[in-house]
Each structure stands twice: as structure tokens, then as C-alpha cells.
């Protein structure tokens, strides 16, 4: 992997990805792929729950209705708010996640898998956090092959030379 600053004149962006839910997977991957399409060199650093997004299989990603007052699902011809207590019902988050996946498909929004593939195709550099792997006891083979493994210093070196640094 190339750890130096881009030799071309292109702009650079880093994103720290800290969230591992289906809904929060979107902002980092949308920005990263779009930036790459606009010739920005992108590094994404996946840490804590964000590391979930580098697992080979993403079928396990869920949304949570807990503490999410902004969530309004179009259902039965209206917009349904999800009270916190819904999340306490066994299977409710899984059900809401299935509904979200169906909604995503119906509205022509790309799947997280598609966006992640587009990121790899456009040479977005994906860095998995070593400490998180150790903390949660995940092995390299649990994660996709196309990633680099690194720590805070790996990220900082890139961030110090980057035009845009985001924390999501």
C-alpha cells in the first residue's frame, strides 16, 4: 500500500467510520465513492462498531429504533415514528431492518454492498483498526481481503496530509 501523499495534484479526504448500523453505513460510503468519482483520493479508517462494515458479509447490519427520534418510516400511507419501546420487543429491530432494506431497494438506493464494492473499484483505501480487531476478537479472515490493517498513527499520517477529514 502507498502510504505517501498522492503524487498527483489531486485532493485528499479521510473519513473515520465509527458506526456499524445499516443506516449509518450510508454517509461514509456515499461520500467516499462520490469523492473518488470526483478524483479525490480517499482513505477510510474503520474503528469500533464501524469495523462491522468491513466484515465479508453485511447481511447482519441492522438499524435500531432505540433513541432515534428522527426515524419516520413510510408505512400504511403515512409516516410512522418508532417509539423507543418498540426496540424492546424481540425481533423488532430485525423486522425494521428488513423493512428498511425493502424500502432501500424500492427507492432505487444502492445497497451498502454495492457502495462498498464501488469504493473498492475506485481505489478508496480501506483501513481496519487493529485495536478494534483485538478488542472484539475478530480475525483478519472475518474481514474483506481488500483492506489494510492499521492504528491511530496510520490514520494520523494520512489525516495530517489531507484536505478534508471527517468523523462519522
Amino acid at each position, binding site marked *: 500500500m502507498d502510504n505517501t501523499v498522492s503524487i498527483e495534484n489531486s485532493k485528499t479526504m479521510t473519513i473515520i467510520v465509527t458506526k456499524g448500523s445499516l443506516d449509518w453505513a450510508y454517509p461514509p460510503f*456515499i461520500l467516499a*465513492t*462520490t469523492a473518488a*468519482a*470526483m*478524483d479525490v483520493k480517499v482513505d477510510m479508517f474503520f474503528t469500533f462498531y464501524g469495523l462491522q462494515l468491513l466484515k465479508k458479509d453485511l447481511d447482519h447490519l441492522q438499524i435500531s429504533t432505540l433513541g432515534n427520534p428522527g426515524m419516520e418510516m413510510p408505512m400504511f400511507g403515512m409516516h410512522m415514528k418508532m417509539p423507543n419501546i418498540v426496540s424492546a420487543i424481540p425481533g423488532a429491530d430485525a423486522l425494521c431492518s428488513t423493512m428498511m432494506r425493502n424500502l432501500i431497494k424500492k*427507492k*432505487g*438506493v*444502492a445497497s451498502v454492498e*454495492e*457502495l462498498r464494492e*464501488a469504493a473498492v*473499484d*475506485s481505489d478508496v483505501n480501506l483501513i481496519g483498526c487493529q485495536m478494534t480487531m483485538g478488542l472484539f476478537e475478530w480475525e483478519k479472515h472475518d474481514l474483506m481481503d481488500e483492506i489494510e490493517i492499521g492504528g491511530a498513527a496510520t490514520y494520523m499520517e494520512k489525516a495530517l496530509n489531507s484536505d478534508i477529514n471527517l468523523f462519522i
Partner: protein
Amino acid sequence: MPTELDAKGMNCPMPILKAKKALMQLEANDTLRIEATDPGSVADFDAFCRNGGHTLEESSEDGGVYTYLIRKAS
């Protein structure tokens, strides 16, 4: 003749990603015609072309279908 790209039914950011992929296959000054249904793509193709040095020769809408004609940067 421009290369055609059908991005209808796709939502942000897919039309831009597909357009970028298609443009990479083209030579400088070649043209790409894109059809999309995402209303957000109007502002996005504007910004995408300005940023990439491409010329947005046409940007129009007809019955919910947005058509863009992009001339690749030389």
C-alpha cells in the same frame, strides 16, 4: 454519436458513479448522454462537471426524466 448511459431509477450517488465509470472508458472530447430520474442529479451533475473540467452541454428535463450531455475534459 454520444455514448448512452441509462441511470433511470437510480438514486444518489449511483448516477454520478456510473457516469464516472463510463467517462473513464471515453477519450477526451467524447460525449456521454445520461438519462436519470433522480431530481438531485441536476445539481450533482453540475458540480461533478465543474469539478472534473467536463462540459455539461445539455441539462434538461422531460416528464420526470433528466437528460445530461457531457463532453469529457480534454
